[in-house]
């Protein structure tokens, strides 16, 4: 199984790998979700959705289906 933001556990840190999926909105990239940047899962709402993240210093919440498209490497 691929490691994505959706598979992170709370408090886990990871580095974003290549962004390939076209579903990922440009807005998310513009908010700092870019290859090589660090992402931390801060909190999830019940049923793991939405997910509250710190990406590259920006605090954001995104829905799980988008999070599942972003491949990461746990550090």
């Amino acid at each position, binding site marked *: 199984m691929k490691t994505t933001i959706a598979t992170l556990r709370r408090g886990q840190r990871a580095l974003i790998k290549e962004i390939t999926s076209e579903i990922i*909105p*440009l807005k998310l990239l513009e908010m700092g979700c*870019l290859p090589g940047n660090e992402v931390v899962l801060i*909190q999830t709402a019940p*049923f793991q959705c939405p997910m*509250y993240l710190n990406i590259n210093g*920006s*605090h*954001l919440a*995104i829905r799980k289906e988008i999070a599942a498209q972003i491949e990461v490497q746990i550090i």
Partner: protein
Amino acid sequence: MAKQIKVSLIGNPNTGKTSVFNLLTGLNQQVGNYPGITVEKKEGICKLSRGVKAHILDLPGTYSLNASSLDENVVIELLLNKKDKDFPDVAVVVSDVENLKRNLLLYTQIKDLEIPTILVINMADRMQRKGISLDIPGLEKELNTKIALISARKGEGIDALKKLIESYTLLSKKTCLDALSFAPDYFDRLQKAFPNQSLYKLWLVITQDVNFRKFDKQQVDIAPDFKIKSESELKRLQQKETIKRYQFINNVLKKCLVVDEKVATGMRARFDRVLTHKFWGYFIFFAILLLIFQAIYDWSSYPMDLIDEGFAWLSEAAKNALPQGPLVDLITEGIIPGLGGIVIFIPQIAFLFFFISILEESGYMSRVVFLMDRIMRRFGLSGKSVVPLVSGTACAIPAVMATRNIENWKERLITILVVPFTTCSARLPVYLIIIALVIPDEKFGWVFGYQSMTLMLLYFLGFASAVGSAWLLNKLLKMESKSYFIVEMPGYKVPLFKNVIINVIEKTKAFIFGAGKIILAISIILWVLASFGPNEKFSNAKEIVTKEYTDLSQDDLDQKIASHQLEYSFIGYAGKGIEPIVAPLGYDWKVGIGILCSFAAREVFVGTLATIYSVESDEEETIKNRMAAEINPQTGGPLFNLASGLSLLLFYAFAMQCMSTLAIVKRETNSWKWPTIQLVFMSILAYSIALVVYQVLK
């Protein structure tokens, strides 16, 4: 008049852009709409030294120049159109010192448009606590601009900003990086095809089509048809552009920004641990809801009573002071109560927006959206629909206005359409009197009264039908909306009182001048219909009634005359006209008039019945007794029994009987289409349910 400097305030959401705007303009501001769309347009005047003035336009918050919503699109359309009367002489980009990296992305894009640009770094007061230090001259050099380091919270640094605006001609127009250097062959070809245009502008116009379909090329002075690339290739290029910009920003900040991680305190983390907790988060949210509900429902009743009495007194005073005549009647019985009907909503609207802006300013609202999104999404709503739905239990008008911050148009529209199902406070007087009439005042299981249970069920029914119809609308409405769910979770802040108050004033004004006009107009029409009749039965009411009842006191006689007049007025005939329609629901023509008048506002029902039954005061007890004595001419039994009572309750629960709400929905959706659909759908639903209930129980 001397020439004004045209300034556009641009910035990410949550950077304190509005605070900067409020500081620059004070109360010299106006809120309107951009032509044809419901995006708010805020502008104001700022006085600079030596009599020079600046016209400040507060553009909607945006994360970049690649628009994904109507609000953001406004920014791009303005900045691409040099002919627009608001096209800025100078752009002021507001950033937040804690999110400088992300905020600078937008800054580099604005710079690429070659507009003179000032960078404002806001929230300077938080630098020390967060362990941040900045090399301002270094940043100015790298970014090719002048920087104003300010604290909008403490009002510091604004004078420096004003000075920079005044001397905007000295600002460099040069870009600070070459963001489009990553795909030379494509961009070289593009430039060759349109040698007279700025490359970045061309690129923006091409990509706007990809990002946001509604972009109107007619408004831009360049119209290239340069789509040799497929959509996904263009998207790739945009990604590369973004990466390129961030590389530049990272390099600049490496040189000019130092963050001492040890100093930074974890206030946000500690708050978040509780406020987004899987149990406590919801618990606290519902406690806050309860408080807001209490305020709108209970506390606002005091000023509302005062307003009610005030207008009654005004009406009376005007009647005594002015000579008698139809024009004076129009003023005292049509216009003044009509105005009262608008003003009466102000306390509820002000309270609601007071709380909402505190929740928004503090950063808490994003947490609510986070907590509720999953649950609401099942019904085609968004986490942001929670506040409108809850405030709908007080009044649908502020609730519809509160949907503005839902970016996704489909989710926002569904929220607007279903909000009127929630049990608003205007339904309450009707519910109370009918319940008292037809539901037995008995208890079961020692504590629960049938009457209070019925009331609770009606509230529950309101929510259930709102959520249920949202689910249905979500299935029915075929609407593509390209907005994604990305919510920024800003840091927690103590709300700025000035911002809260300005927001409350703005929202209240929008209601008075937007919906108010329509409410007033319809009130006057209803008054005319009730005050004139087609024949002498109306005009000779006094003689007819006096002849018929000879032994009544003057007061009783006046009541009888009023009742007789209403029966033979235009609206009385209308009530009799619709009797065949309402009879299957178990009502007579008098209730029919009550329902007709309720289309002005539901709470009118009780008052109208009071006039029709010619009871002396609209004390609940008296009307109740009078209603209990009414006989149904068809059955010979009491008119209000369980069947007709329940049918009436359910009719009021489902019917769209509030012209103020229709007016505000028209305003917010910018078309008569949606309020019409709402009216037709809810009326049919209400009628069918009331019909079934009466016919089954009868």
